[in-house]
C-alpha cells in the first residue's frame, strides 16, 4: 500500500518520467525481497539514531507524536502519561530537546514536554572527573530498569509499561536530585549508578521535605554488558530503590518502601546481514510497601521482542503481568497497582530516518475493569537535531 502511494506520488510529480508497467512491477518485487533481508541496526525504536545537527551549537530538536486511539470499553483503565484515555485523536507528546558542552568540565541536556508543560530532564553533567566517575545534577529520569530512562520516541510501543506506571507513575520517575556513576575498571562494561532524588512523590516513594538523609529517594543500579559473540550482546541490570512510603502511619512513624528489580536485554544481529536485528528485553520487579497496619507486596514485569525486519519496518510484541502478593487495603490497591495482564503487538514503518508511522493492537485484562481491546495509530516526526540514543 505504502509502496503504491509512494509510486503514485512520484508518478503525479511534475515532470515525472512515464514508467513502464513491467519495470514497475519488477522493482516492487525486488524491493520486497530487499525489505526482507535488511534492517537498520542500533535502532530499536524504528526511528533513526542519525542526527543532522548542523551548525546549531545547542542541538535544538523537536519530536512530535500524534495518535489516533480506539478502546473497546468506555470504562477502561485510564493509564495517564503519554497514553490517550479516550477514543479519538491525541497529541501524545511535543518534546523539545537541547544539549551542549558548557566548557571542558560540564555539559547540559534538557527535554521539555509541551503536552504536560514540564521538564522531563534538565541535567548538568560532569565530563572531566577522574577515576571513571561521572556526576549528573538537576532533574532526571532515574536509571532503573531499561524503560524508565527512555522517552516516548525510544519505545517500541505507543504506550508505557505497566510496571513503570504501577511502581512510579505513568511517566516513570523523574525528580530533582544528583546521580553519581562509576565505570568500574573491569575488562567488560560494568557501571554502578546511584541516584539520590528528593522533593517529589511516586506511587511507591515520598520525599515531601528533607530533614535528614533518610528523607531522600535512593536508587542504585548495577549494569553489566557482555559481547557474547560478535553478533550477540547481553545487558544485565540489577536495580533497587529505597524511600519513605507514601503511606505514613498515624503515629507519625515513617513507613518505608523497597523496590527490587532486574532486567535483561539480549540482542542478535546475524553475521550475514548487519542491518537486521532481534532484541529481547525483559524486566522483573518486586515491591514492599509499608502501609498503615499492613505490608503491601506485589510483583510483575514485562517481556518484549522487537525485530528490525527491513530498512523501514519494525515489529514488536510485548507481554506484561502484575500480581499482588500480600496486602489488601482497597484504596492502596487502586493507587499502586491492580492485578493486570496485557499483551500488545506493534508494526512500525519509517519512510525516512525522521518520521515513523506505527500501528498497535493491545488486549488488557485489569482487575476491576472488563477486558479491553486497544487500537492505536501513531505518527511521529522529528525536526532539528535528534540526539543519539544509548544501546
Amino acid at each position, binding site marked *: 500500500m505504502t509502496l503504491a502511494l509512494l509510486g503514485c506520488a512520484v508518478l503525479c510529480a511534475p515532470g515525472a518520467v512515464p514508467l*513502464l508497467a513491467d519495470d514497475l512491477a519488477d522493482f516492487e518485487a525486488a524491493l520486497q525481497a530487499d525489505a526482507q533481508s535488511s534492517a537498520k541496526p542500533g535502532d530499536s525504536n524504528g526511528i533513526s539514531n542519525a542526527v*543532522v545537527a548542523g551548525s546549531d551549537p545547542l542541538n535544538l530538536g523537536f519530536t512530535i507524536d500524534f495518535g489516533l486511539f480506539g478502546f473497546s470499553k468506555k470504562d477502561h483503565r485510564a493509564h495517564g502519561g503519554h497514553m490517550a484515555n479516550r477514543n479519538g485523536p491525541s497529541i501524545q507528546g511535543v518534546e523539545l530537546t537541547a544539549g551542549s558542552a558548557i566548557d571542558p568540565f560540564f555539559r547540559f541536556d534538557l527535554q521539555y514536554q509541551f503536552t504536560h508543560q514540564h521538564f522531563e530532564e534538565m541535567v548538568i*553533567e560532569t565530563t572531566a572527573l577522574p577515576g571513571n566517575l561521572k556526576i549528573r545534577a538537576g532533574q532526571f529520569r532515574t536509571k532503573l530498569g531499561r524503560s524508565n530512562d527512555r522517552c516516548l520516541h525510544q519505545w517500541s510501543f505507543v504506550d508505557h509499561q505497566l510496571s513503570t506506571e504501577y511502581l512510579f507513575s505513568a511517566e516513570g520517575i523523574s525528580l530533582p536530585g544528583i546521580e553519581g556513576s562509576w565505570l568500574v575498571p573491569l575488562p567488560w562494561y560494568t557501571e554502578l549508578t546511584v541516584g539520590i532524588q528528593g522533593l517529589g512523590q511516586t506511587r511507591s516513594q515520598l520525599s515531601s521535605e528533607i530533614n535528614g538523609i533518610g528523607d531522600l529517594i535512593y536508587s542504585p543500579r548495577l549494569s553489566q554488558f557482555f559481547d557474547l559473540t560478535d553478533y550477540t550482546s547481553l545487558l544485565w541490570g540489577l536495580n533497587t530503590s529505597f524511600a519513605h512510603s507514601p503511606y505514613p502511619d498515624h503515629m507519625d512513624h515513617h513507613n518505608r518502601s523497597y523496590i527490587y528489580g532486574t532486567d535483561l536485554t539480549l540482542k542478535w544481529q546475524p553475521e550475514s546481514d548487519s*542491518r537486521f536485528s532481534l532484541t529481547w528485553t525483559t524486566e522483573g520487579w518486586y515491591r514492599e510497601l509499608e502501609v498503615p497496619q499492613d505490608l503491601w507486596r506485589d510483583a510483575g514485569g514485562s517481556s518484549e521482542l522487537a525485530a528490525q525486519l527491513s530498512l523501514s519496518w519494525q515489529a514488536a510484541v510485548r507481554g506484561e503481568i502484575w500480581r499482588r502478593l500480600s496486602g489488601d487495603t482497597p484504596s492502596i490497591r487502586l493507587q499502586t497497582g491492580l492485578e493486570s495482564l496485557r499483551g500488545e503487538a506493534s508494526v512500525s514503518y519509517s519512510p525516512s*530516518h525522521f518520521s515513523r508511522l506505527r500501528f498497535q493492537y493491545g488486549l488488557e485484562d485489569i482487575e476491576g475493569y472488563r477486558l479491553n481491546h486497544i487500537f492505536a495509530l501513531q505518527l511521529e516526526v522529528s525536526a532539528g537535531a535528534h540526539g543519539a540514543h544509548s544501546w
Partner: protein
Amino acid sequence: MRTYCFIAVLLWAFCASAKVRVVSTIPDLADVAQQIGGDRVETVALLRGTQDPHFADPKPSMMVALNKADLLLSVGLELEQGWLPPLMQGARNNKILPGNAGYLEVSQFVPLLEKRTNVDRSEGDIHKGGNPHFWIDPERMRLIAKGISTGLQAIDPEGKAAYEAGFKAYDAQLQAKIADWKAKLAPHQGKKLVEYHRSWIYFLEFSRLVSVGEIEPKPGVEPSPSSVSALLERVRQEQPRLVIQEAYYPQNLSRLFAQKAGAALVILPTMVGAQGTKNYIEVIDSMVNQIIAHLN
C-alpha cells in the same frame, strides 16, 4: 627500600612499555594509525568493515575501549553522530572529548566535496559540512595519514621520529599503489556508472569514472519502485556500465536495476574487513580490480 625500588622499576617498565591506545570509528583509520605507529601503538576499531557507519549499534562495550583510549579517530561531518556521542559521554575519558588532543576528526585534513548551506531534510539526509565518504579516495587518505601522524606526535611527543618515519614509509607505499591504480583505471576514464548511495564521489574523482545517478532518490531515503523506474528511464540513454554499492545496502533492487540498465552490479568493500580485506591498501586494490574486471 628495596621493595620501593622494585615497585619503581616495575612502574617504569610498565610506563616504558605502555603503547598509545588508538580507537577509531571505522577500521580504515585504525589500520592507517597502526601502519604509521607500528609497535608504539595498539589500535581498535569500533565498527566492523561490513557495518554501515551511519547506523552503528552503540554497544556499552565500546565505552570500555574508549575509556582506555589515548586517541579517538573519527570521520566527522556527522557521519557517526547517531551513535558516537553517547559512547564518548559514557566513556568518562576527558582526553578523547572534542577540544582535546586525543580527539581527531580526520575530515579536517581533506578537501571536501558537496558542502551545503541552506539545506533541510526535505532533500534527504544531507551532511551540511560535506560528503563524509572521503576515505575511499587514496589521495585523500595520504592527507589523512599525515594528519594522524601529527595527531600521534601531539599525544606521544617522544615518538615523533618514529611516527614521521612511519608516515613516510606508508606514504611512499600509498604513492606507489596510487600510481599503479591510476594506470589500471586510465583506460576506463569517463565510463559511466550508477551508485546506490552517494558515497562514491571521492573515489569517482580519483578514478575519473562518472556517476549518472543514484538508486536512492535522495540520500538516506529508501528507493521506491517508481523512483527506480524513473531513474532507469533517465539513465538508459547514458548506458552506465556498472552499478556500485556497499554490501550493507539491499541488493535485489539494484541487481534488477542493473540488469534492466544493461549494467553489472558490483558490491565493493569500502572498509577494512569487508570481503576479507586486511588493510586499507587491500580495500582499494579490491575496489579497483573488481571495477576493472567488470569494465573489461
